[in-house]
């Protein structure tokens, strides 16, 4: 006969303990997570190896080639030169010293900008036409550079260089890396995830890109409020029509509010940093 008395008594306290623990956890919900669990070898996996960067650049080039195949380049050498100088000034302050950034202006009437892994940033002439000063151009480019520096696409598509070490080879032999179970499992989950949650991931990416963009603008010396200003202006310019696309960006008002919140918490709202309107007028579209 099992006597479970001794276990039933303390078990009654478990739900109470559970609630107690939960309540203390929630109070720290937005606190920065300290990653004390990472062991010394995790440094190895976070290091960007040359193979990883090469894989990223290769991937980015094919995407960039597609964009260039679809849009033609706007032929204005001095504008092109100018955009590259603004872009590179920002990029030089990002942590991606391992790639060469390239900026180009697309001949398109749609207000938009694109970035691909590996350092390619495209901005449309219509987008530039809606700008009033260099800091706004910097803001748009900074947002795109942030996607690259934070490796959003690299992480989403798990772009990695192949590992050539002996240990990796042995691991494969022991069956840990290439088993069919693993492949089936991850494929199934990936598909499910894509269906359910692709929108969610991208919203988090956008938030991070906005935050990094503000820091990048301030690091380079531009007025960080330029991004909110620009977004507010183009919202009025554009006609609606999201159409069937699922929005990956939060609605503009939400975004501007969030930007204001970030600026306040990062102490960026009272910086009297330059907008550089004069130089912009010299180079920009007539």
């Amino acid at each position, binding site marked *: 006969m099992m006597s479970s008395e001794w276990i039933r008594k303390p078990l009654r306290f478990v739900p109470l303990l559970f609630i107690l623990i939960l309540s203390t956890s929630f109070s720290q919900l937005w606190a*920065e997570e300290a990653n004390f669990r990472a062991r010394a070898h995790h440094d190895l996996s976070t290091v960007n190896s040359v193979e990883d960067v*090469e894989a990223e650049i290769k991937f980015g080039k094919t995407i960039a080639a597609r964009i260039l195949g679809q849009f033609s380049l706007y032929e204005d050498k001095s504008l092109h030169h100018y955009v590259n100088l603004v872009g590179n000034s920002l990029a030089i302050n990002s942590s991606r010293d391992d790639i060469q950034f390239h900026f180009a202006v697309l001949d398109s009437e749609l207000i938009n900008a694109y970035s691909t892994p590996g350092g390619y940033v495209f901005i449309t002439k219509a987008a530039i036409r809606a700008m009033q000063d260099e800091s706004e151009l910097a803001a748009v480019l900074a947002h795109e550079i942030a996607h690259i520096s934070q490796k959003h696409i690299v992480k989403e598509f798990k772009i990695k260089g192949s590992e050539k070490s002996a240990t990796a080879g042995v691991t494969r032999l022991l069956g840990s890396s290439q088993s069919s179970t693993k492949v089936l499992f991850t494929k199934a989950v990936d598909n499910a995830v894509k269906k359910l949650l692709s929108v969610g991931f991208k919203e988090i990416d956008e938030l991070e890109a906005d935050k990094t963009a503000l820091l990048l603008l301030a690091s380079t010396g531009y007025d960080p409020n330029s991004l909110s200003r620009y977004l507010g202006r183009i919202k009025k310019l554009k006609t609606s029509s999201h159409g069937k696309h699922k929005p990956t960006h939060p609605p503009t008002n939400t975004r501007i509010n969030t930007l204001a919140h970030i600026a306040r918490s990062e102490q960026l709202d009272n910086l009297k940093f*330059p907008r550089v*309107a004069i130089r912009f007028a010299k180079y920009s579209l007539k």
Partner: protein
Amino acid sequence: MKKFSWLLALLFIVPSITQAEEFLYVMSARAKLLESPKFGSTTIENISKGVKVSAVEKKENWYKVKHNDKTGWLSRLSVSSHPPIKRSRRLAKVDEKMKSRSRRRASAVSTTAAVRGLTDINRTRVNNQDRMDFVALEKLDSQVYSEDEIFAFMEQIKD
């Protein structure tokens, strides 16, 4: 029990000995060492890329570091815990193999998904059927700007 007590004491001492001094490497070409952890504060000095500094404290987006005799703050964007790796010159040029491979192989990834845009409205479809322009890409790749040129441009960031 006595034996265990000194073992236990050792276990507490060991971490403090083994606690490695944390180092950071400057990643941006020229990082500003600031007096206080906010943008706009006085620049103590500029530190160039690749320099190793020791990290003393972390506060949100800022690291308090020591470089030579000076102590100041660096933005987290400008540092990394790993030394910068050299830019790969091998892929500076698009190779012929890549062009033909890309044309033959249907992309596993929707290009639309692999592009990050600025806004949603009027998000143009960049899809798999479109042609690829490697000539334009090569032209784009060939344009390189020197650090001096970029720094000179940055100096003129003023109203």
